[in-house]
Structure formats: C-alpha cells, structure tokens
C-alpha cells in the first residue's frame, strides 16, 4: 500500500478561499517568492532547482534545471509558461489554474527571477475561461500586493507578467508553435534545429518554456529546499506528480502522488484513488501519458509510475494522464477516435502529418464503420511507417514536430495488440460492440 500522500502542488486545491490573495497568503503563499528575491541570488534558485531533479511536467520530462542552464546568454530573454493543456484526457493543469492561480503566478515569478526573464507570459489554453478569470484576478492582486512590477517586495528586481489567451489549437501545446501563436501567427511549429527556444525563442530571443505544473512546484522547492523535494520519489523521478485518471474507472479525477512510489494498479484500483472498475468489468488496456503514448495491457499494471520505469516498458509517463479502458470498449473505435483527434489537430504545415493524418483517420473510420478490407491493415502500418520510419518507439519522424509520430502510435499499437478485433470488424462488416 502506498504511503499517505504528501501534496505539493494540489495541497490547497480544496480550499475555495485559496483562489484569492488573502486565502493564498493565509495558506503560506508568496513565501517562496519572497525568499527567492530577498534572500537568494538567481543562481542559488537555479542551483536549488537543479538539485531538486524537477522533471518537466508537460510531457517530455526534461529536467527543468538543465533546461534553464541551456538558455543562451542574451540581454533579453523571456519566460513563457505553457498552460495550453490540450492533450486528451489530461486535465491536471486545468485543475491547478482554477484551484490555485496564485501558486502559478508565484511559481512563474520565481522562474522569471531565476533566469532573469525580461518579461513573463502565461499562455493559457483559451477554453479555460474560468481559469483565465482566476489567474487574471490573481495577477491583478499580485501587482497590488507588490509581487509583480517594479522592485517586487522591495527588492531591486522588477518584472512584468502577462496572461495571454490561446484560441483553440492543440498544436500550440508544442513549445515552438506556442511561441508562434504568442507572436500572433498561426501555430506552425518551428524546425529544431535551429529553433530551440532556449537559443531562438520568442521574438527570436532565448526563451524558456515551462509547464504550469513544473513552475507550480517552485514555491515549495524554494521554501522547503531541494533536499525536501528529493526526499520524495526515487531515481530521476523526484517530488510528486499530478496524475489525471479518466475513462472507465469508478473515481476519475486528479491525484497528486509521490513520484515512482506507486503503480498503475495502485492508482486505478486503490479505493483512495481510482477505486477500481465498474462491477463485472475487466481491464482491457491503459493509455498512459497522453494519447501519443503506446498503450499498456493488464499485464503491465504493476509498472511503477516513474519517468524511467514507464519508459522501460515502451511507453511514457508523458503528461501524467491515465485512460482506463475496460472490456466493454471497442479498441478500433478508441484508436479511430484518437486518429480523428490528430487529423483534426494537425497544423497542416508539413506533408506527412497533414496528408497522412487524415488518410489514416479515413481508413480507420472505414474499418470501424464496416467497410474495411484486410489489406487496410498493411496499408495502415505502411502509412504509419511513412510518418514514423520503422514504427519504432521512441519514434523517429518524417514530420517537423512530434505531433506527426503521435498519429501512428495508437493505430499501430492497437493493431499489434488487438489485430483480431480489427479482423472481426472487417469480416463482420461492422463493429461488434455496436
């Protein structure tokens, strides 16, 4: 059984007063920022974060401290907080911005201080209207409180923070297309190299892009020290992690768990968390880490929820989402729906994703609706191969960004895991679950 969880980023989530400055201050808010700007040099903050082994919580899991250290020297550099959470079945940032907006503001300011950002932008998914109102209110309060603006908290450090609304495009969660979008353009990803944000980012200036949950950890780390953070977790995976549990499970929701200490079985079946499946149902598959990730089967329930542990079984912890599918679910339908998502959300800039994505969706749709042909399975695998050469994991790609290789993932993995189900659709001319 897991230990009773220590919460960091969601500790105050259930306190309705916490969305205001007064409530946040009553809960110990802004102590981290005060400590940082009044007692620490920027490099001390960066050292703390480096020592904390704070892995990015957006999906790629790159160490935040190392990311900061790669920032190219420049008089002007920017910090952009990626709050464009759009990965299907990922809703932990949504919860964090609505329930603890000041924590986000404080974390963003600490990061801004640590890297000496000229300005901080919080790019918030446009659909998070309530979250936008709360974060905007928090920013207004923080300006009045002296936490943003000139000489914050009487230090010599000045900074401005701008909340920027997205307008509905999944691709903008990809950091370079987020920057394009923030520059007022369509969200076409930039090609790396040379457009690594830390080198050529917003307005061509070195830029750090950090996820909401990543910076939400900073007030706690600064306040309690990196060693308290590394006391939690194991291996490279330290501190806690927000998991978004959804699908056919009794208690879907967000759960903050210590990193690398629990398994998929724990989070799905523990009565404190997922509470198991509906009566009489059995587990068919799990989609961890976002719909770009390869699926896992019931035999992988005991994999530990840590960055390297999930990677070791050929998938990823990714955005921290976990989708549970029981035996009442058609796997072809699930994979088709995911392919439809990618076809709709492809930005259209590069050929394999624009054309391949919608082609794959059309074939998947045809199979699910009963007009599939047996050769379609080979066709699908070959189309996948033309986007991800070798259909390998971690994927190579013929596309500009990683949305491309996300397309084949569910299709290829579901064909591999559930080929019979596909064949049944084809032979019976329809979906057996209808």
């Amino acid at each position, binding site marked *: 059984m897991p230990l009773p969880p220590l919460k960091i980023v969601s500790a105050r989530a259930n306190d309705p007063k916490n969305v205001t400055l007064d409530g946040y201050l009553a809960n110990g808010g802004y102590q981290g920022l005060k400590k940082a700007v009044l007692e620490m*040099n920027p*490099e001390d903050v960066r050292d703390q974060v480096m020592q904390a082994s704070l892995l990015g919580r957006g999906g790629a899991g790159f160490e935040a401290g190392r990311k900061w250290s790669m920032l190219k*020297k420049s*008089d*002007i550099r920017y910090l952009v907080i990626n709050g464009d959470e*759009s*990965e*299907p*079945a*990922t809703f932990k*940032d*949504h919860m964090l911005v609505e329930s603890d907006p000041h924590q986000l503001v404080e974390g963003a300011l600490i990061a801004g201080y640590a890297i*000496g950002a*000229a*300005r901080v932008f919080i790019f918030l998914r*446009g*659909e998070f*209207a*309530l979250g*936008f*109102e709360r974060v*905007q*209110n928090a*920013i*207004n309060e923080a*300006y*009045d409180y002296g936490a943003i*603006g*000139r000489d914050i908290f009487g230090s*010599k*450090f*000045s*900074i*401005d923070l*701008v909340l*920027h*609304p*997205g*307008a*509905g*495009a999944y691709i903008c969660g990809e950091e370079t297309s987020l920057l394009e*979008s923030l*520059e*007022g*353009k*369509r*969200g076409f990803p930039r090609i790396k190299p040379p457009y690594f944000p830390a080198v050529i980012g917003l307005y061509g200036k070195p830029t750090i892009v950090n996820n909401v949950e990543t910076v939400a950890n900073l007030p706690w780390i600064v306040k309690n020290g990196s060693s308290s953070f590394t006391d939690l977790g194991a291996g490279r995976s330290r501190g806690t992690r927000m998991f*978004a549990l*959804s*699908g*056919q499970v009794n208690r879907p929701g967000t759960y903050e768990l210590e990193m690398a200490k629990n398994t998929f079985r724990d989070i799905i079946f523990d009565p404190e968390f997922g509470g198991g499946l509906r009566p009489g149902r059995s587990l068919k598959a799990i989609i961890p880490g976002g719909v770009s990730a390869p699926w896992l089967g019931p035999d992988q329930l005991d994999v530990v929820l840590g960055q390297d542990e999930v990677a070791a079984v050929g998938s990823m912890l990714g955005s921290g989402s976990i*989708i549970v*599918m029981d035996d009442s679910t058609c796997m072809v339908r*699930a994979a088709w*729906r*995911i392919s439809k*998502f990618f076809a*709709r*959300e492809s*930005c259209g800039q590069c050929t394999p994703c624009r054309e391949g994505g919608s082609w794959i969706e059309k074939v998947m749709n045809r199979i699910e609706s009963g007009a599939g042909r047996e050769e379609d399975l080979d066709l699908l695998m070959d189309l996948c191969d033309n986007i991800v050469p070798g259909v390998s994991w971690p994927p190579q790609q013929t596309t500009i960004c990683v949305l491309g290789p996300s397309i084949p993932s569910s299709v290829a993995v579901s064909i591999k895991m559930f080929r019979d189900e596909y064949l049944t659709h084809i032979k019976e001319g329809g979906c057996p679950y209808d």
Partner: protein
Amino acid sequence: MSRFTKEMETRAFELLALYPEKRSATIPLCHLAQEQNGYLTEESMVQIADLVGTTPAEVLGAASFYDMLHTEPVGKYVVGVCTNIACLLQGGEELLGHAEEKLGIATGATTDDGMFTLEDMECIAHCDHAPALQVNYRFFGPLTNDGFDALVDDLSAGKLESEVPPHGTLSRVQRKHPIAVPLEEIVRHRRDSDAKEGERLAAKAATEAKEGSN
C-alpha cells in the same frame, strides 16, 4: 458597424501595450472583437490588421487556424460536446446525438433563433466529469440526457446568465495594470545583474579552485 467601440478600442490599445511586438496582440484582439460582436467580422479583422501592423489576409490566416475564433456568426451559446477518448468511453457521442435531437440542429449548425450553436469538441480537459461539454467555454458534466435538457432549458430561460456570458466574452476579469517597467529599463537592469552574477560566479570558482588545490 462592427469596428471597436470607443470603450473597446481603449481596451485594444491596453492589450497592444502588453507586448514587445504589436503582432502578439492579434489573438487577444480577435477575442476582444468576438466579445463585442459575438464573432469575428471581416471589418474587425481589417481593423485588427491595422492595429497590429499586418494585412487582413494574415489576420484571417491566423484566426482561421484556431477553433475558438469564428469568422461566421454563431449562437449566443456555443455548446461544445466533447467526444474525445475520455468522454467517448463514457458516452460522449451519445450525448452529442441527443444534443442534436434536443436542439433540432446538426453538429456545426446554429438554431434558427440564434441561441445555440452545436459543436463536436476535442478534449476539453474536464475528463473526470465525462461525458462533459462546454457552453461558451464554461464547463458542465457529467451530463445525462435529462441533465442536458435541463441545462438547455436554463440557458434558454436566462437562468445561467451570471455563470455563462454570451459567446465571445472570454474573461469577465480585466487586467488592471499596464506594464510597470519598460522593457528597455528591465534589459538594462538584467545586464547589470548578469554582470554581478558573473563576478560572484567567478569569485566562487576561484575560491573552489583554491580549496581544490589545497
């Protein structure tokens, strides 16, 4: 006339002033135009192009990329039913089918009275409330068919006006503060503090080297 009203124009200039480059205000200004007119009119896009220094074609090019920006009129309430994987598993498609029946329109259409536009949404990050939907980006769920009917009836009866503003109003909370410190001044400060940090790090390295050699 769908150009910005005086009051909205003031807000437009406030938005423009938040960014080092004007073009960054394109999307916030598109939202602002939607707040005023319910959707993004051609006239608004021409005006926005003027304000941010691009061409109308570039504004249209950017705006049409984003799902929330509507270049055709939409209903007072844009109802987006999520059918993505988490909701699909919990009956999202069935909910969308029911919504079509209840509203009497196909997905993508607007009711004759201009009250409702129905959309098929990708994941709205409300998965622990599946099947979920959003009305003007305010979230509801989990919804049964009856729950949906009640929601539509409440919206029609004006009972939810405080929760759900008309389409286009993204946020009812406005930014109160202009940029406090000009970018040039910040940059000067950063240059100074970078220099000081450099000195500290050099001193530290020297001390460490000394300790190392001892």
